[in-house]
């Protein structure tokens, strides 16, 4: 065999090794998974925001929905309004959303006053209910400690430790 073939084989092995490494790195780029946190653009600066004219009406509609609890204003997500995770929102699951310190929870709180599996929000007959899962420091709906599954409406405050969450659409 010629010296050229030998050199090509020798360097070809090194090239193949590095190509393999880069192929793996390529796979890793497409393999990101877990939870995705997206930053929402503030409404005032959003160029292609909601339909013009609709935005001033929205807070009013929200308030109306809060008072009457209409069918049309069905909550679809949970928003943290106070506490370290303030501003976070996550979709509600009809099978139940767990809140607590344990990593298996949908909303994981880093709060000494919260229990591992603190509370659960679930849907029953078209309404969202919250139940306390035997927490140490209790779950508060509108500042009253709950003992049985309690219905949640849009805008009802739910306090767990130092965190306050609300339902939102």
């Amino acid at each position, binding site marked *: 065999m010629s010296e050229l073939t030998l050199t090509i084989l020798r360097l070809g*092995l090194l090239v193949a*090794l590095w190509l393999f490494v880069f192929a793996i790195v390529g796979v890793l780029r497409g393999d990101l998974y*877990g939870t995705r946190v997206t930053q929402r653009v503030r409404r005032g600066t959003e160029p292609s925001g909601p339909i013009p004219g609709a935005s001033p009406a929205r807070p009013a509609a929200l308030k109306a929905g809060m008072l009457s609890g209409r069918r049309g204003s069905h909550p679809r997500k949970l928003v943290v309004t106070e506490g370290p995770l303030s501003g976070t929102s996550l979709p509600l*699951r009809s099978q139940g959303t767990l809140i607590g310190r344990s990593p298996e929870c949908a909303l994981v709180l880093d709060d000494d006053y919260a229990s591992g599996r603190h509370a659960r929000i679930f849907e029953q007959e078209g309404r969202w209910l919250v139940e306390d899962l035997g927490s140490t420091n209790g779950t508060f709906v509108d500042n009253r400690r709950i003992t049985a599954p309690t219905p949640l409406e849009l805008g009802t405050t739910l306090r767990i430790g130092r965190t306050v969450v609300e339902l939102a659409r």
Partner: protein
Amino acid sequence: MTVVSRFAPRRGRNVELLLVVAATAIVLLAYVNVGVNTHGEVPSSLLVLGGGFLGIALAFHLVLRWRAAYADPILLPVATLLNGLGLVMIHRLDIAHGRSIGEGMALRQLMWSALAVGCAIAAIIIMRDHRVLRRYTFTAGLLGFVLLLLPILPVIGSDKNGSKIWISLGPFSFQPGEIAKIILAIFFAGYFVQTRDALSVAGRRVLGLTLPRARDLGPILVAWVLAIGVLVVERDLGSSLLFFGLFVALLYIATERISWIIIGLTLFAAGAYAAYLMFGHVQTRVLLWLDTFSQEALATSDQLAKGLMGMGAGGMVGTGLGRGRPDITYFAESDFIIPSFGEELGMVGLFAILVLYALLVERGLRTAIGARDGFGKLLAAGLAFSVALQCFVVVGGVTRVIPLTGLTMPFLSQGGSSLLANWVIVAILLRISDHARRPVPESGPTPIGEAPTQVVKL
């Protein structure tokens, strides 16, 4: 406003298949390189060996499709490639020592590879959920320490090349430290999941560092005494460092307190220095490390010097597989397989191998991040870290970063116990990653509050 949404990863089984085939192709290319450079022809056994090797890897791949469909797609191809490269290098050293395929070490290593992959497959099939391992936390602890201390025993323990890390039972010799690594990782993970809350209680703040309470220092002192004991009695810095490093790393991961790392490193440094002052064999190791090329060091052992010369001879792109002289160094196929690769693949090839290890470790740590249970997190992190630390100890030893010790390079080095242990590590990581990547079922088990009880049904 921020929105948190979950999304599941792709299974990646087809990507894995593709990468396994690519890995086999690279191994065969390396094998052709050896054949052409030593005998001037493409080896005739190429298709048979290549087919056998691919068959072993594909068997594992199919088992993953069957039993762990969401497992990480990178681990298996990387392990396959490293195992194959090790086989090629051992075969190449067989040729240099004039051994035929039948009597050489490469064939035995290939059989060990098949056996190791078989054990890994069995582990994947038998262990449907890694959390069952937590039941055996303290059994694992006891077994791990027994395995670690087994080589000290008079009859079965055997003294090879200055360190007592082997046991011999008749014709078989075995490094129990390799298996102890996995078993101790299980023990530490299970133990720290239970005790992390007590251990992460903060004590006083000194110089901006939160020190733990004095009474929580117990476990780390026990681990330290054992590690120094291994260093002194078994004369093996590598096992000692691996075992204590694994302990401190898991302690840090479980408690998130940097003070544990500082305490651990200080204790280890102090213990190692005391051992250096008191024991002659530790002084020899340090002399070989600091003054490799001095007269008295060369009179003791020129192994390290030869390895360094070999790597120097390799240069950037290496001499080519089969064209260097790695066989001059003793243990070129086990402890010194990294200088052998450095000589024949050069720095470019050696770094590719090191990056492969880095990717393997990264996937292990990623699995730990994704795991949803504390035990799985700690176990995956511990296993990944043990592979990383072992690579550091071996590569650091042969490149004179730390004193040389007798550990094996995972997957590359010749030796059955090492291969077996590392394939089982890969199997456990695959099992945990399958659990971590599998999407959470939207309709989980009925929550306690809703489950109808028998009384209600009546």
